[in-house]
């Protein structure tokens, strides 16, 4: 009787604890006053398990043997006592013989005398209380370091615990890796589902890291204990100091890029600086711009030596390196229009070079004037007459310019220049081609007078007029035909007709093939042919200098003249034609195909007739302002 309230009390107390025990956990929450209870039941290998108890507040039950553990698996089976006690730990160990998996097991604490039952049951299933041991042999290896040596990656490896039968597959383990910086309190967690290694990324160099790992069963939630911590530190990595060389390299690279930008922006100026253009024979005061604009009056003026008193100096006098400037009178172009003018010029020449008339060298002299000195020097020490005229007449094989004489088979003597020094390049806009062509830049000295004067052979026109024009015409007709065939479809028909009309007058068939700006062949213009015929030159306007020129030029047979000169940009209007190619012109450039780009000679060529014409003797071929390709090699640039 008296025990029944006690029993009820006990029952009530045990029911109170029962609710706590019914949590699916091996840890029980205890409330005061606490009766003896189980603190934990854990299995390490899913084959055995242990249970720990505590006496709670019943301190009189703390001695070993005061409390006993009973267990049972099935509901109807009898309670059995703990197979193995470890009193020092207050632990009951269930070995594999006493362990049944997949079965609910209940344990119970009883007093020594089996009278009081402190809790009804603490039930669990062994597979649910498995907490595997921590992994063993935790180690780390360096995976890589970042380029600047600030961060590095490591691989952490470990082995499964020995107690877990992983090899047979009885237990499948998942792991959890935690790491932190040594002075930090927060752990970084990395879950590892399978495998026994894990890579940690982005660790800071020069900092120490602490790593530990714990394991659990796959598809279960309870972790085992942590492994022993390992410490990872990468100190004094040599790559750390490499940041400076890297910065240096980057700086140098930036400087190089800047230099290259500068180079490209200033390309033209640098090109001029490093590769100065080949000085071409120039006439003081005349430039290609002026020629382009077509200010021929000015050109004539200048060339005749009026403006600055410049004079024409023969270039080809090789013995004397620099021929002194010879001042020439600017001759009225009208004067040269007739023979009278020429003869008077011859007279003037013969009469000496004194004030009345200065010898005017032919047009070519324009190309030869090196009059960068004062005019005084011209008169001061002129070369002797012989020298002068020999200069004029010497067909030096290696002048700076060669004569291109088309249409003359006998011209091919190794000296590209023809006999007639007249061929000159087409230029644009000669208003009075006839007058202009009447003069020759060079003339052959046919005789020297006893008085010291020089008799010069006549120019081209004179020769043409008196010689067998027909014969020439025949020849040139043939060549014309050949040329026509070659040009073929490129040349419109109309261009050819006028050529034939003026055959007799043609001494040369120098065709200046100029490319269209469009580049589709020859520009043909009837006007061209007509106007350009004077003096035997067919000229085509050179409207642009282009690559097309080269093929166009190639049309001509090798047998013929080798016209390979190209006019620089001439006046764009094709209507004004072109007069006659001047006898001589300025070599402006040599293009990539070894053709010469010549300045168009000034329209008022007659103004500068430095050369009196002797009607008697043909002019020896003189090198003129253009060079054939094969001559080019022998010419020093």
């Amino acid at each position, binding site marked *: 009787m008296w025990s029944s309230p006690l029993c009820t009390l006990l029952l009530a107390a045990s029911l109170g604890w029962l609710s706590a025990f019914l949590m*699916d956990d091996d840890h029980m929450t205890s409330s005061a006053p606490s009766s003896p209870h189980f603190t934990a039941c854990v299995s390490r290998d*899913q084959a055995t398990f242990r249970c720990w108890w505590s006496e709670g507040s019943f301190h009189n039950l703390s001695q070993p043997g005061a409390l006993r553990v009973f267990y049972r698996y099935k509901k109807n089976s009898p309670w059995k006592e703990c197979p193995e006690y470890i009193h020092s730990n207050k632990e009951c160990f269930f070995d594999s013989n006493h362990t049944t998996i997949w079965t609910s097991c209940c344990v119970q604490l009883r007093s020594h005398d089996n009278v009081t039952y402190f809790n009804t049951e603490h039930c669990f299933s062994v597979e649910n209380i498995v907490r595997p041991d921590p992994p063993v042999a935790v180690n780390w290896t360096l995976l890589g370091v970042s380029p600047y040596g600030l961060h590095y990656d490591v691989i952490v490896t470990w082995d499964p615990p020995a107690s877990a039968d992983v090899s*047979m597959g009885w237990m499948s383990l998942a792991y959890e890796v935690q790491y932190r910086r040594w002075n930090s309190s927060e752990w970084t967690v990395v879950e590892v589902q399978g495998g026994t290694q894990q890579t940690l990324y982005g660790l800071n160099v020069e900092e120490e890291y602490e790593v530990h790992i714990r394991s659990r069963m796959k598809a279960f939630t309870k972790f085992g204990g942590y492994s022993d911590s390992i410490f990872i530190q990468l100190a004094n990595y040599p790559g750390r100091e490499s940041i400076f060389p890297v910065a240096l390299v980057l700086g140098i690279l930036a400087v190089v890029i800047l230099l290259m930008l500068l180079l490209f922006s200033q390309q033209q100026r640098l090109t001029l600086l490093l590769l100065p253009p080949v000085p071409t024979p120039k006439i003081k005061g005349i430039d290609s711009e002026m020629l382009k604009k077509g200010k021929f009056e000015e050109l004539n003026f200048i060339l005749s030596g009026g403006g600055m008193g410049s004079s024409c100096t023969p270039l080809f006098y090789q013995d004397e390196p620099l021929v002194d400037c010879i001042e020439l009178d600017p001759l009225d172009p009208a004067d040269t229009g007739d023979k009278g003018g020429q003869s008077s010029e011859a007279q003037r020449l013969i009469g000496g070079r004194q004030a009345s008339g200065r010898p005017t060298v032919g047009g070519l002299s324009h190309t030869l004037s090196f009059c960068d000195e004062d005019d005084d020097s011209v008169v001061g020490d002129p070369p002797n007459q012989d020298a002068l005229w020999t200069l004029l007449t010497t067909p030096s094989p290696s002048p700076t310019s060669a004569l291109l004489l088309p249409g003359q088979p006998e011209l091919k003597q190794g000296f590209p220049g023809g006999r007639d020094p007249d061929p000159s390049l087409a230029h644009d806009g000669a208003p009075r081609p006839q007058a202009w062509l009447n003069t020759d830049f060079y003339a052959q000295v046919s005789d020297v007078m006893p008085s010291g004067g020089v008799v010069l052979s006549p120019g081209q026109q004179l020769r043409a007029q008196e010689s067998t024009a027909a014969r020439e015409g025949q020849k040139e007709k043939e060549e014309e035909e050949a040329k026509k065939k070659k040009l073929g479809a490129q040349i419109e028909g109309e261009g050819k007709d006028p050529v034939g009309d003026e055959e007799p007058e043609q001494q040369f068939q120098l065709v200046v093939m100029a490319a269209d700006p469009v580049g589709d062949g020859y520009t043909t213009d009837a006007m061209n042919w007509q106007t350009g015929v004077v003096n035997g030159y067919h000229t085509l306007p050179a409207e642009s200098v282009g690559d097309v020129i080269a093929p166009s030029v190639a049309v001509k047979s090798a047998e013929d003249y080798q016209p390979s000169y190209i006019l620089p940009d001439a006046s764009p209007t094709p209507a004004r034609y072109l007069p006659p190619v001047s006898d001589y012109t300025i070599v402006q450039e040599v293009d990539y195909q070894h053709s010469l780009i010549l300045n168009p000679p000034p329209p008022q060529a007659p103004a500068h007739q430095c050369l009196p014409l002797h009607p008697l003797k043909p002019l020896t071929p003189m090198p003129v302002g253009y060079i054939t390709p094969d001559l080019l090699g022998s010419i020093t640039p």
Partner: protein
Amino acid sequence: MQKNKKDEWSFAWLGALCLVLRTPTDTVRAAPICDNGQASCQVLSLADLFDRVIQHSSRMHGMSNDLHSQFEQYFLPSRNHISNRVNRNCHTSGILTPNGKENAQRLAVKELTEVILKLLWAWRDPLWHFHQSMAHHDDFNSFSSNKALVMGDLVHELRTGVEKVAEKMQNLGIISNLVNGLRSPEQLLPSPVRPQWSLMNDYDLLFCLRRDSNKVQSYLKILKCRIVPENDC
């Protein structure tokens, strides 16, 4: 002539395509399985088969665990609920299963295989009904109901796989013919003891499912270790 060539090429391409597309997408080594069980068809070795079914069983166990914990969280938030009832009587309790590692290792291969198959057959109907009941729950998220459906498929596939393993073992002479009555669930449990699975509530069913899937996984691993010799077993 050229048309014939073209046809040949197209056929060749089709054939190549067929060959390429026929490769199975299973995660285990992709190799064709011989369906008719001919002795000459030895494409897949027994070890490969075991690996496949063990992977499958791991998946099944994982999914059953997820289902159980989700169910617990969703329907039984309070921890006071009795979750560790002693008398959780699963409908498969009548099947004699080795309840320990050593017991399972001591069991004969044939019996072990039979146990596995019995377990798998026992879960076919309950899972289907469980899926049906989950679908009617409006408050249970659809993800779990889909998982229940997937669970049924998994169990079915695993069962098929284990049967194939058993066939192969029979062909290899490892075991004798299996009991034919495995397929009838009625013979699994003695009638007086068998609790009707329809009477079990869903939570208990999930609990039992989790336990049984763990059993199947462990038995399969033990079986593989015994049949396919490996250095670690």
